[in-house]
């Protein structure tokens, strides 16, 4: 009797734990709301009071705006084309260098073709609006994280 009873007890415990695991997983599978992406309900009610009443735009301004948009579109297109041509030119220059290296010595060429693992991961900060102020002491502060946690 004893071993059967012990076995039965262990089986029941296992089943209980498995049920709890399944419940937790179900909770994890539910999508959690992102607060920034939802419109807060209070705003929808107040929408009428918050609409701006601005004077209507004249046809002149509308025309000017349309012209400006067209100019911008052509400008950006030309910029993009120039970028692509520049990239092509740079790649061509590198390819030419590699071809010449190959003509020089096969061994150097093979070594140059090795993948350089030190390149990635790469981190850099882009250009800013103003240069960094020299010997600037940034004021101290603390971050208090008030985001909701879903478990």
């Amino acid at each position, binding site marked *: 009797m004893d071993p059967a009873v012990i076995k039965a007890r262990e089986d029941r415990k296992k089943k209980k734990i498995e049920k709890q695991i399944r419940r937790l997983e179900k909770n994890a599978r539910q999508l959690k709301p992102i607060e920034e992406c939802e419109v807060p309900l209070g705003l929808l009610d107040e929408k009428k009071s918050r609409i701006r009443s601005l004077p209507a735009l004249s046809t002149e301004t509308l025309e000017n*705006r349309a012209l400006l948009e067209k100019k911008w579109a052509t400008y950006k297109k030309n910029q993009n084309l120039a970028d692509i041509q520049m990239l092509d030119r740079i790649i061509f220059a590198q390819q030419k260098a590699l071809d010449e290296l190959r003509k020089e010595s096969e061994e150097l060429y093979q070594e140059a073709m090795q993948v350089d693992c030190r390149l990635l991961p790469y981190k850099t900060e882009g250009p*800013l609006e103003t240069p960094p102020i020299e010997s600037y002491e940034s004021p101290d502060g603390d971050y208090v994280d008030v985001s909701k946690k879903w478990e």
Partner: protein
Amino acid sequence: MTAVCLERKPVIVQELNKLESDYKNLLAEVEFERSLKSDHEVRHEKEIKQMEQLKKGGDVDVHLKQTAQESVDAWTEEASQFKFSSKITEADKQNDVKSLNRKLDKHLVLVVKQKVGKDSLYLLPQDLRQDGETLRQTAERVLKDACGSDVKAMIYGNAPFGFYKYKYPKHVRNENNSIGAKVFIYFARYQKGHLQSQNDYKWLDRAELEDILPPEYNKSVSQMLIDE
């Protein structure tokens, strides 16, 4: 021969040209027109109405709290007191070609004065490859020799980026039994560090590079660099 093109990338964004700034203003206007009023604006309007009612002698609501207008004034005051550092630095005004702080919105390339044959020219730092070294190792050595060990730079990969070929003048040809030299140019990005060099060096932007480098050399170099 291996040469290294050490370039400092821009620290500042370039000025917007007229079309770009016009379009930026247009986008800001359109966004303003399509937006709803924020909490701050609603509060501001409410307080204006309260002030008008006070003037008419209606409510006796004393405002002990700061009004929205007062907060805005305090904030603009604080903002105007903060001094950004200027985009045109000391080095720009003196046009100090050895300094890295000049022309913060352009790419600057290092050129070193080197002896080639009889004359000394301003070129990218270069050196002969020694036996047993790969091109990449030569490039690193060239960088170290030309700039001292303080400078941190990242060489972009094992492969050369550009290439220049020149023929030796006749008397040198007979001495070395070789017709000319091929220079493989590696590209390195300057990260930080102070330059220490015995020879004369300059940090130049693209237009100045065009002036100072010999024409064919400049053609090869400018082919492998980004446009300004």
